[in-house]
């Protein structure tokens, strides 16, 4: 779990994401305190914790949407630094799905999916569209390709957003509370899509309160509180036999 100051040349190719001693402040407010986390390739990690515990901030640090001030973050063997080129390259390998979908409202679902492959990777339009249609098929909205985001339900929008990320062929997928903005009856379809993705071997870091999903899909559950990782355990152990009192308190509040 803990990092031991490896240099990037010595990075284990089996390790997808490594955070070591990461501190982050929003001006004077420290939101991450010495966070250590290693995610192996193909591993599915679910991050949970109370609101304000720093889970979203941590996951946003992994693709540098937030800058950390101390410690190291290594993604696919590349350490995140202020170098734009490095960040752009890392981001191409890391897909991200947001709570509010963040689809481009003025583009169709297909255009949402092809914009980045065409302009970032230089894929020809026809090829990008073929790939996009394949992924839309996979998230089960092939018939929505030519619709605008506003014409879709929340669940469909989130699945379109997942397809958009997958079109960049990422090695790692980050999910930042992907079902929190959805009506309850639409949560299932998004979780199913994510579970399917997990089955296909995608490396996933997922912030969510869906404990059923954590049980079903996660290799490990990480519990955060007040900017620290409090406890990490496989889901069976995490839910049946949590060690820390804060974990127990949290679980007693969300499991009924």
């Amino acid at each position, binding site marked *: 779990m803990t990092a031991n100051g490896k240099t990037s040349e010595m990075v284990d190719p089996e390790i997808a994401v490594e955070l070591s001693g990461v501190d982050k402040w929003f001006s004077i407010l420290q939101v991450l305190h010495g966070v250590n986390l290693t995610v192996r390739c193909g591993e599915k990690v679910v991050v949970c914790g109370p609101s304000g515990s720093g889970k979203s901030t941590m996951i946003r640090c992994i693709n540098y*949407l937030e800058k950390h001030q101390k410690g190291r973050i290594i993604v696919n063997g590349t350490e995140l630094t202020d170098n734009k080129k490095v960040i*752009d390259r890392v*981001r191409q390998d890391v*897909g*991200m799905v*947001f709570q509010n979908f*963040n689809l481009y409202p003025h583009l169709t679902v297909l255009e949402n999916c092809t914009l980045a492959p065409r*302009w*970032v990777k230089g894929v020809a339009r026809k090829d990008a569209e073929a790939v996009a249609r394949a992924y839309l098929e996979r998230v089960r909205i092939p018939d929505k390709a030519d619709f605008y985001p506003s014409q879709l339900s929340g669940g469909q929008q989130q699945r379109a957003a997942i397809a958009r990320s997958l079109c960049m062929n990422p090695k790692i997928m980050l999910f930042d509370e992907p079902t929190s903005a959805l009506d309850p009856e639409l949560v299932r379809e998004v979780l199913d899509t994510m579970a399917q993705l997990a089955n296909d071997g995608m490396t996933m870091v997922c912030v969510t309160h869906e404990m059923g999903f954590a049980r079903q899909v996660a290799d490990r559950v990480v519990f955060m509180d007040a900017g620290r990782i409090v406890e990490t355990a496989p889901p069976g152990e995490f839910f049946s036999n949590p060690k820390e009192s804060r974990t127990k308190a949290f679980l007693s509040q969300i499991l009924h």
Partner: protein
Amino acid sequence: MDFAYILEALPDLMTGLKMTLIVSFLAIFLSCLIGLLGAVLRTSGIKPLQYAVTAYVEFIRGTPYLVQIFFIFYGLPSLGLRFSIFWSGVIALTAWASAFQIENFRAGLAAVGRGMHDASASLGLKRWQHSVFIVLPLATRAALPSAMNTIVATVKNSAYLQAIGLVELTFVAVDRIAYDFRAIEMFASICVIYLICVFTISGLGYMVERRLSRPFGGR
């Protein structure tokens, strides 16, 4: 009302209209460009530029338009900046409209949420790609209703330029009234002409608005 007189005056009025349209379109075009640029500068986070743009907007908003026109036409020559009537008119109208367009586009930029930036960043889009493909169309769409308002006002405010002797629509009407005292005929006529211009522009605006709510097409 003497329609025969209006018909007789029509060629003169058309000459005036032509000038109104030329000055207005120049000012509209320039003020939209300056408005977009100013809005970008005002939200750039570069403090001196932000203050400069804010000061400009406040100055234009805080002083009478007619005074600005006189300042440019009668005031600037004593500072060694002498422009023709035509260019004084274009500059005055552009200066006035730009201040409002800056604010319109600033509101448009503010309407593009942080989420769009997150999405583009996580997809690896470059800053310019995000600006051109995402921010520009979304900000324009959000700014359009108020920008159209300013565009319409720009056309109407070209009438003030008769005060420095620019031979535009209102000047022609006032000029003819001085000779023939046909005030009702002339003012009614130019009201109708202004209305036709404004309706045409508004119509175009609605068309663009509808177009922008569709995809970023044609690529």
